[in-house]
């Protein structure tokens, strides 16, 4: 198990390195001059030259990449332009702050949004999937499949905007979405995020219902499930301990992908609800040609997916001893 994990983590690190290199070269191929930004509005040519030197962009690309990488571990100093302590993902001259700091600042919003919605859609999706599988062809199953079809076909900005208009402005059952740190006001935190959670969950649940239902239907027909019943296990234990166990693998697979994607920045959701998370940060970075920030958000998005992959792989091994022991 330990060997399995080490292998996966090492693999993930290599992938992250490759992704950083690719994004780095991609972004620095864009003809935007970070030095001009760093230098400020009125910028005499000699100061610009100095800025270029301090930023290191007069160096060959490869050297730049290495110093960028080194910055992650030891930090960086941009002459008089700014200081960026380790882990340094670059310095944003738009925000006048190290990128890492901004990310850390925005992260809680995105994480709270993601985790809250994920808890709802995972539990709700799996539960409705199980019920639908047990009631195959009955009214409850049909209701579940119709609503999951609806859920799968609507778009977040559409439902989100509609929900905002109706629930917040018209009948006012929800607060205007807003992020309040949980440490400051737990109830405010909850109320501020409730509507985005529900809207996100509405859209994602459909997929979980569908996948849980189909794998449960399959698993309920497995021989070992029949054996469990033949040896007198109760109905509930047969469903939860035997059939569901086998259905977990595909659910966890898509859950990992969804979670990774959402942590990387729920751009549309955050925009719809006006939440200042990673997604909004990325949009702003594009607007202002803030390359270091943009690159960091792209890297974060990729990193989130890679990390979720490692976690999912390890969970496979926990769930299925055949994976662990092979």
């Amino acid at each position: 198990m330990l060997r399995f994990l080490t292998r996966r983590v090492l693999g993930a690190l290599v992938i992250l390195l490759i992704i950083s290199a690719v994004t780095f070269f991609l972004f620095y191929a864009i003809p935007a001059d970070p030095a001009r930004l760093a230098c400020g509005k009125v910028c005499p040519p000699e100061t610009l030259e100095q800025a270029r030197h301090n930023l290191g962009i007069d160096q060959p690309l490869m050297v730049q990449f290495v110093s960028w990488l080194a910055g992650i571990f030891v930090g960086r100093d941009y002459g008089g332009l700014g200081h960026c302590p380790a882990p340094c993902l670059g310095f944003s001259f738009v925000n006048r702050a190290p990128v890492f700091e901004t990310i850390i600042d925005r992260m809680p919003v995105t994480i709270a949004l993601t985790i809250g919605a994920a808890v709802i859609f995972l539990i709700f999706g799996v539960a409705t999937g199980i019920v639908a599988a047990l009631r195959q062809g009955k009214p409850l199953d049909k209701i579940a499949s119709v609503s999951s079809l609806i859920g799968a076909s609507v778009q977040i900005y559409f439902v989100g905007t509609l929900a905002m208009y109706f629930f917040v402005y018209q009948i006012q059952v929800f607060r205007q979405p807003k992020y309040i740190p949980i440490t400051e006001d737990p109830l405010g935190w909850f109320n501020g995020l409730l509507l985005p959670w529900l809207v996100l969950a509405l859209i994602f649940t459909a997929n979980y219902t569908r996948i849980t239902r189909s794998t449960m239907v399959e698993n309920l027909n497995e021989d070992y499930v029949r054996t469990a019943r033949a040896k007198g296990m109760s109905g509930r234990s047969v469903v939860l301990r035997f059939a569901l166990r086998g259905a977990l693998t595909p659910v966890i697979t898509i859950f990992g992908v969804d979670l990774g994607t959402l942590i990387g920045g729920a751009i549309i959701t955050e925009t719809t609800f006006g939440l200042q998370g990673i997604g909004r940060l990325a949009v702003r970075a594009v607007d202002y040609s803030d390359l270091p920030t943009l690159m960091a958000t792209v890297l974060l998005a990729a990193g989130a997916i890679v990390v979720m992959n490692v976690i999912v792989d390890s969970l496979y091994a926990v769930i299925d001893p055949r994976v662990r022991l092979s």
Partner: protein
Amino acid sequence: MFLEVNDLTVDFHTEDGVVHAVDGLSFEVDRGSTLGIVGESGSGKSVTNLAILGLHNPDTAKLSGSIKLDGHELLGAPQRELEKLRGNKMAMIFQDPLTSLSPFHTVGQQIAEVYRKHKGVSKSVARERAIEMLDRVGIPQPKIRVDEYPHQFSGGMRQRAMIAMALVCDPGLLIADEPTTALDVTVQAQILDLLRDLQEQTGTAIIMITHDLGVVANTAHDVLVMYAGRAVERGTMREVLREPRHPYTWGLLGSMPSLNHPVDVPLEPVRGTPPSLINVPPGCPFHPRCDYAKLLGPGVCTGERPELSPHRGHGDACYLPLKQKAELRSQHGKQPGKEAS
């Protein structure tokens, strides 16, 4: 009798129509004895035995008749009551031990949980019992094997583990649904020996479902031959194998490899295909495939359905007079079905 099945009928309501999988089936099994149930694929062997355990989906399967285990009526009993009996008083082992064991739990867990569920003992007692059972079914190093997963076992070992799981609560009835079909020949013989030994020790009644008349000859005391969900012949193993009466049984015997079977004559399966269970042929369901129907007058085999007769002992469901069958048998040697066509 320990198990008494009377006039059992199982219908499945499907989109294509009602499948009459079992129709008016009666048989009994006593403690310490083995009933072999044989018949082609689709003749209703598994459906019958799943009905005994109460494992059919009540939404699609409609059952009628009576199934009495040790005097208690099982048909129509509430699920909770059946749950208490399954694994405890009656148990089943299946054809493919790999898919029939849970891949997610150790062999020990799967055996121990049955014992805990029905005997209410502690985890450690149940574990000890699991080790003891593994030892009894001949698994070496049971203390180590108890913590392994089914995929770490060989095919024969898995079936032994399955048997250990089925017998952990000392059930009065064991149903073995083709327990050796998925195993290779030498392992097959070992598993059958094991079942026989265990039966001698515990006096369990066994129902042995099989396609293989060799397995019947080796294990069964009594035999029930099924065709299209009905019993077409019943008797002791010797009676049915030595003096088979029903033309379908003749066909089955003709399709069976035997020591004195000449090598240059190929084995022939019973001619024709099994009938639809939605539109079962009227009269004797075997008549479309039977070579002897023409010996009887027209309309005889297609009219009324023949019942098993006589009611006790060696009986079969066919209109041919007993004397004529004996003649046919002696004319064609031991296996009249083969030469008849």
